[in-house]
């Protein structure tokens, strides 16, 4: 199997660095994206279709990052794109919002368990911020309970005081508890009684750099009870998991109901729309908050979202994703086992997280991931992965073959560890 090189990618990154901060900033860039080593990874895409993308050097990648989530059906899905193109010809960003917004909100109400209403925006962070604003406005309380290792976007309230761009006062009401720690949660509630606006969490702990942790039996039901009894708004950040477990919301999947549910990545197969869904009792409050954006009511993403939701329903929704994820995890586990490499696969199968367990520095893991990418399977070092519904059995078999070869390359480089 040949390994890839990236001369055009690297030249383009140098050009980009002249006119764009970092060349590529954020999670899709080499720095925050943990391209280790940077020479193993493509930096710019040329095109994408189904489960694959091609970089500017013409290298083809089976993509398990799915644009970090939005590619839920397959890149350039014909049905979603047709709906979007049809809407584009009619009108997109107009003075009055398109009627498509109402149609989508009604479809969300039918689809998502807690969606008595839906507020549309663009990014996941728009919805987590609105959720916290809503909780504070509705309760008149200040404090936010986070789960340690959280990620809810990049707004100041989500950061730490040691970030140079954050004022300590912006995060002084942030409280932390471990995931699955009911006793810790009870203690925090008791210590901050009558001043907690909300508890915000992802449906399960899918933090980076650590094995992902599923909710313990009864955990969410007890959290729900504690929030209700103490007047705390329960916010589920379903931006990453959303619809890869359950179209009704990941709260529904785990058998409870959130007060506010943040959705984004899975909604429209890459068209830019996010959604905060909520219960009726919070509708007057969210209605009163000044919160808007220039493109939040554009019609094309609404049309794309309607097509995406209907196609997801037809294809089996979250269960179809979970089934595909199980197959991928199985071939990876088999390749690791046959090569005598310790591989931890954690989280839900449709969002599997990988870690080689044979050292605690993650350096072996980074070497293996680089070997995978250079052979055409795009995985990333320390972030969970994503399935999409265009994945085929042949794609999954290819994943197993590449994993096997990448493990062999790793073992050849480390005879001191692998006999």
């Amino acid at each position, binding site marked *: 199997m040949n390994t890839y090189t990236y001369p055009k990618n690297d030249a383009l*990154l*140098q050009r980009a*660095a002249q006119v764009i*901060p*970092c*060349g*590529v*900033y954020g999670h899709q*860039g*080499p*720095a*925050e994206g*943990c391209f*280790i*080593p*940077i*020479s193993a990874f493509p930096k710019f895409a040329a095109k994408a279709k189904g489960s694959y993308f091609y970089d500017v050097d013409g290298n083809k990648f089976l993509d398990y990052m799915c644009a970090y989530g939005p590619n839920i059906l397959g890149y350039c899905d014909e049905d979603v794109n047709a709906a979007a193109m049809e809407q584009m010809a009619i009108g997109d960003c107009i003075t009055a919002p398109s009627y498509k917004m109402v149609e989508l909100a009604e479809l969300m109400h039918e689809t998502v368990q807690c969606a008595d209403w839906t507020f549309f925006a663009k990014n996941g962070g728009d919805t987590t911020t609105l959720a916290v604003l809503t909780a504070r406005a509705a309760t008149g309380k200040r404090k936010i309970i986070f789960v340690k290792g959280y990620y809810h976007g990049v707004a100041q309230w989500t950061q*730490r*005081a*040691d*970030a*140079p761009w954050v004022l300590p006062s912006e995060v002084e009401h942030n409280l932390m508890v471990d995931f699955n720690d009911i006793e810790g949660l009870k203690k925090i509630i008791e210590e901050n009684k009558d001043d907690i606006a909300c508890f915000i969490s992802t449906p399960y702990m899918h933090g980076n*750099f650590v094995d992902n942790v599923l909710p313990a039996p009864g955990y969410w039901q007890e959290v729900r009870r504690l929030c209700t009894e103490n007047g705390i708004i329960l916010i589920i950040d379903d931006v990453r998991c959303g619809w890869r477990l359950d179209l009704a919301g990941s709260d529904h999947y785990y058998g409870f109901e959130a007060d506010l549910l943040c959705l984004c990545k899975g909604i429209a197969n890459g068209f830019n729309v996010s959604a905060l869904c909520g219960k009726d009792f919070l509708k007057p409050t969210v209605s009163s908050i000044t919160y808007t954006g220039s493109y939040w009511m554009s019609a094309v993403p609404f049309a794309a979202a309607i097509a995406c939701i209907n196609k997801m329903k037809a294809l089996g929704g979250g269960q179809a994703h979970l089934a595909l994820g199980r197959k991928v995890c199985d071939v990876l586990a088999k390749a690791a086992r046959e090569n005598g490499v310790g591989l931890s696969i954690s989280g839900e199968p449709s969002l599997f997280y990988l870690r080689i367990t044979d050292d*605690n*520095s*993650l*350096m072996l893991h*980074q070497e293996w991931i680089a070997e995978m990418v250079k052979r055409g399977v795009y995985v990333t*070092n*320390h972030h969970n992965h994503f399935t999409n519904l265009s994945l085929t059995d042949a794609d999954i078999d290819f994943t197993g073959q590449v994993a096997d070869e990448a493990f062999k390359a790793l073992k050849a480089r480390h005879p001191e560890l692998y006999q």
Partner: protein
Amino acid sequence: MKDPVVMAHVNMWAVLKSLEPLCALDETAKALASPKKPMSIGFHVQGGPMATLHFDEGSCRMTRGNTGKVKLLLPSPQAFNAMVDGDRNPLPYSGLTKVNFLLREFTQLTDLLEVYLRPSQEDLEDRAFFERSTTILFHTVAFALAAIANNDPLGRIAAAAIPDGTIAMEILGGPAVEITARDSRLVTRSRKAERPRSYMIFDSFDTARGLFDGTLESMSALAAGKIRMGGYIPMIDNLNRILGRVAVYLA
């Protein structure tokens, strides 16, 4: 915002500590650090750090505690900071007979250190000087990281997020340090780490200099491949937060 107590720790454990690499790299400094008999100067900063500089046979070494043959008492961190800035010359309360070394050789050494830590553009055009200066600055920054991680309120937030283990930091073909995190405290040592849990390697003296001078930004340097990092990345991410505080204190 600079806290005077934290500044005193930085001045002690990073700035004065940099006399060690200065004496190792600069011939004039070596000569100044060669008293006829071993000499030592102790600094007791009330409400701040306490350390002793030892000079012998061309080398300098810092130890904890005030065991100097010449002992200086600084009544406050502010007074110590003023001394390091050259605004105040305290008199020793012990070792008066050896005060000549303090007033002559030690003063010349600290003046020379300033030449390397705050070099002129003209000096930096001499490549050998540039590399010596960057090496000394590298050590100053590396030791300031620990001083800030252990004392600065914002630095402590970042240090608390660094899991136990060793971070290797080096300039390719140049100096190396290991920074060990344990129980939310950092210790810097001037040696190449043998089994680091994470690493941050600058590809050249120029990259390191650019970062320290603020003309190069770390995320851009990472993207350009000028800095290589690997291993347990949260260690590096949080170290970079502290590096931002170093820039505040050493500015």
